[in-house]
């Protein structure tokens, strides 16, 4: 019943507010709050950003020994905020203003991975430090493409004419794993060492799904699931995977 209440339209909702004596009081506090709110909204992050920061905290950086930036997925957000349309819109805003970057790593059409742009650039710089690639090209890539172009993939035309890269430069970029080949003349923007992440991500997801499947009636309490252990290869942690499978609608919740 409580669930039904919450989805009712505004007109029907406040039917219980009969006492009128306190109304004035309410109004006063309301205006006060409004003033506060106006002051604070400038600094408060949106719901989606807050959820992203929460997920970023869940990501076990120490288990990967700093070889990966914190990577979140788009559908994990759906498990925290239930209005998917709102998540999409706010994430789009974050993407356009350059705070986060979206990546396509898996083969699935609607699976997007999210990394904060700041984390991404510092990660790339750390990653190429030990490699024999042209650092000038990478720096140029980071300062032009990453800051100006927010798309998940790039094609030859934009690379050659808009950003003035040469063919050899693109080879260098592919070698440094910031680009992966999508098709002839088009590339995905990628995260170096993403394979490490994908391995534990897919293994962990598979493990947790089999775990649920093997339960009686194929269902389990979330609190019970949280205390269980995942195999060693899946290093992302139980809570991270629970958000993943709920958001991707692989389980009914």
């Amino acid at each position, binding site marked *: 019943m409580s669930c*039904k209440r919450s989805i*009712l339209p505004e007109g029907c909702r406040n039917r219980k507010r009969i006492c009128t004596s306190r109304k004035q009081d309410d109004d006063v506090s309301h205006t006060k709050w409004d003033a506060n709110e106006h002051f604070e909204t400038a600094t408060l992050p949106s719901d989606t950003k807050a959820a992203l920061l929460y997920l970023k905290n869940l990501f076990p950086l120490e288990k990967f020994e700093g070889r990966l930036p914190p990577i979140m997925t788009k559908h994990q957000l759906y498990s925290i905020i239930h209005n*998917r349309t709102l998540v999409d819109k706010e994430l789009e805003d974050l993407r356009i203003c350059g705070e986060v970057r979206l990546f396509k790593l898996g083969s699935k059409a609607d699976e997007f991975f999210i990394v904060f742009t700041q984390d991404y650039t510092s990660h790339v710089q750390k990653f190429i430090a030990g490699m024999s690639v042209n650092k000038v090209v990478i720096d140029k890539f980071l300062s032009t493409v990453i800051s100006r172009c927010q798309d998940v993939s790039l094609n030859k035309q934009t690379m050659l004419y808009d950003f003035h890269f040469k063919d050899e430069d693109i080879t260098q970029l592919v070698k440094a794993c910031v680009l992966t080949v999508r098709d002839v003349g088009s590339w995905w923007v990628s995260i170096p060492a993403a394979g490490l992440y994908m391995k534990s991500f897919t293994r962990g997801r598979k493990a947790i799904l089999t775990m649920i499947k093997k339960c009686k009636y194929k269902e389990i309490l979330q609190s019970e699931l949280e205390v269980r252990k995942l195999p060693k290869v899946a290093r992302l942690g139980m809570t991270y995977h629970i958000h993943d499978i709920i958001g991707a609608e692989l389980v009914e919740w």
Partner: protein
Amino acid sequence: MLNLLASRELGVDSPACVFHAETALLAHSLDLSKYHDFQKIHRGGINSLDLDPVDNRYLLSGGGEGIIGLHDLHNTTGVPQCTFPTICTVGLSNRYRHKFSVETVKWYPLDTGMFISSGTDKHLKVWDTNSLTTADEYEFSGVVYSHDVSSIATKHCLIAVGYLGNSVRLLDLRCGSSIHTLKGHRSSVLSVQWSTRNEYLLATGSQDSKAMLWDIRRANSSLMMLDQHNGDASANPNSVNTAHDGHVNGLCFTPDGLHLVTFGTDERLRLWCTATGRNMFVNYGRINNKCRKSITLAMSHDSKPEIVYVPSDNNIGVYGLFSGTKLGTLRGHFSQVNCCVRDANTQHLYSAGNDRNILLWLPQTDTVRAYEAHLTGDSNKAHVTRFTQRIAATADAWSSDDD
């Protein structure tokens, strides 16, 4: 409610406000009716339902064995509990019947004396309701998946037909022949729907994952091809504009005709603006869609927020039209649900599926709840008495205290 009425009285809210709030309450509280039943006539799954637009009283159902039934929804018994009778059927003995499954049935929008059916026997038939004979018949080169008659048209009398083959046919009832072929799809057209605002606007969804809008007055009728990425080239792997990544088998205009909802086998529901043809990017999440035939969605637009009812496997999902949030699930069918129809006056929802049942979903008002309690109370009492009788019959009268 009192609040609403008071503010309506004072003129704070418009009269529509009360109406919208009350319909929203009803539309949100739909649940399976426990005391209504339909007389069973179908031997196969039911593919299509249509409620007559004249007085919302007669329900047409088209079934898997070529049977068409006409149900009377008017309850004259005086008791809420009833079985809706079938007034007449196009049964197996009718020599005009469809040889195979009936895919779509539609009332002629202006008069209940006529209805139109089409099916997998490649025929579209125009029926006289009173004599249950066909007035006209059209044959196609392939299975007819769906047809539609415009409910608002005043200047034409056209039936749009989507069939196996890559075009849409327009049939004119006045001259009794096919007058136009709309070419543009690459594969079978699974669903066609006339706009509810513009009488010349037609929407079609096809197996080639495209949904198109047509203006039938133009020589090159195609108006636009709906694009799920809104022309964002980097997200689009191939250059053709697709509405879904699978077959498009459900179409529904909002009753004001400003938006279009499409449902595809990529398990997505999409909302489009009909004026610009742009994707509104409302994310409804994954909605199971294993059906490879046409699916009918229902919509409730007089409630604010608007609601769309989407058949998804054995259940019907209830979604907010513009927010995309899931508001609930209607569970009751035992097999794939193929269609749902809503009665705008009473807020009743009728659904039918492969389990051969037609189900009625009632808004849970206080009277409905009270009547249900009354019924269960009765059956409980009956149960208790039967139980005590049984105990009495098997009870052992012997007692050890006697000796």
